């Protein structure tokens, strides 16, 4: 038998309960995060219009650069101001 050392970060992910899926977006605040890629705003404008059509309120946010993770403050702002979030990646 060979014993080796674990090369990983040995993380134990926390299991967290998901927030229940809303039955309707009517009256809820949905956050849209622009990651600052060119023409991302064109796409998000369309999404915003569709969401408003469903009766949702939309908050728009923007990352300083697509090349770095969103700052902690921004993530906190989104979490505290919105009822739902649409997460998407560029490219």
């Amino acid at each position, binding site marked *: 038998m060979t014993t080796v*050392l674990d*090369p990983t*970060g*040995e993380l134990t992910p926390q299991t967290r309960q998901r927030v229940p899926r809303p039955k309707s977006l009517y009256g809820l605040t949905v956050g849209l995060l622009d990651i600052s890629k060119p023409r991302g705003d064109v796409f998000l404008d369309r999404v915003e219009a569709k969401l408003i059509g469903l009766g949702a309120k939309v908050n728009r946010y923007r990352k300083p650069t697509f*090349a770095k993770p969103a700052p902690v403050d921004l993530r906190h702002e989104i979490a505290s101001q919105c009822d739902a979030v649409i997460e998407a990646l560029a490219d």
Partner: protein
Amino acid sequence: MSDNPARTTTAPPLPDGLVAVVKKDCPTCVLVMPVLNDLARRARATVITQDDPSFPATAEWVIHDAELELSWHHDIETVPTLLKVKDGQPTERIVGWNRTEWESFTGLDDLGADLPDWRPGCGSLSVDPTLSDQLAVKFSGSAMKSRRVEIAALEDVSESMFDRGWSDGLPLVPPTEARVMRMLAGTTRAPDDLVAVVPPDLVECTVEKVAVNAVMAGCRPDYLPVVITALEAACTDEFNMHGLLATTMPVGPVIIVNGPIRQRIGMNSGINVLGQGNRANSTIGRALQLVIRNVGGGRPGGVDRATHGSPAKYGLCFPEDEEGSPWDSLAENRGFTNGESTVTLFPGESPRIIVDQISRSPESLTRHLALALRSNISPKLAMMFDSILVLSPEHMARYRDAGWNRERFNQEIGEMLKLSGDELVRGAGGIEEGLPEMFAGNPVPKFRPGGLLVVHAGGGAGLFSSIIAGWVNGNTGTDPVTREIKP
């Protein structure tokens, strides 16, 4: 081993006075048995026997080192070893049998009068290759905290590591406790020292975890300080390892090594400098990428979204040929002294060649290099992407002969890399990609100030240079980072 910070135990004391360490399975030890008896009688010597407890006698002056703890701790490499011990610690030692030496060491005459004058000793059991690893693990009081993963006897160790997802696709060296301990001897830092918080999972990474991955990558212990410093440099805000990992572009952390450590660890800055064949060049960058993968959790298809990737992402690391260069080194140019060893991290893709076998004037060669560099990333884009230019010795000779220094070169190539905004804007040349319209009508530099890093390396023959293109630079992407390598 005594300098190994992973070793936390102290050596158990030996009996004071004269001590001989022997084993029965050694013809020289058997030969000197009468001398050992003599020394016990005349000098109250103690004999430590490694294998047979009744060799050379069953007596109170014979200690059986059954676990080899005394032999291991006191670094016995040969039997017989004759020691002078004071306060439990050896002060002097001789090995093998040599009558004159034994007589002068003990101050006693007529030792082993019937024996030959000289016989070499045998290997100590404590350094037997089949035992030494287990002994090191057993007696070092290992401070290593990583989870122990037991791979069953019927499992193939190599396959098992692939199955666990630890590999970059190439075989790994199994990170056994003994190997990781030897790796840790390459640094003065303690195993539990924090090196960096590694993206994308933002995991605190200790010296020990770096060592485990360095073993797997195939590093030698003396490379470890380079890997540690490279990881520190990679995990800074300026270098933005998270973004570099996540990008769809084919870039990874490229490591350029400067300073005395290049020769000390045997790096290759000459023939095939950017290719295979040198252990340090090949494994240091790989070790860094394995830390990002295993500790940080950064994997292709996960946070790593590269469209194509590139062979550079296995780990590209090379040293500058400073000795052959008439210029200051890259590290000196970035504010370090030539006595300091450094790593410079650059977000780069795989190298590509520029051939120029005809230019004999520095002006012609520079103009040609500039023309090739225009296509860095895209001939329609400028300023957003840095580049490394690796000048070969034969190309550098043009500048040496003409007396151009680095400043002169940068100034001249900077002029030649002032591009026409009209040719770069979107739509120009019938190509929709390009700079925004606002750049039309003005000259646009291909590189931001300091965005072209020039390094001297390569084999002595070949009128070629190499370009390593970067990705988005500055606050929105990555800035190259240079750090001093500490032991």
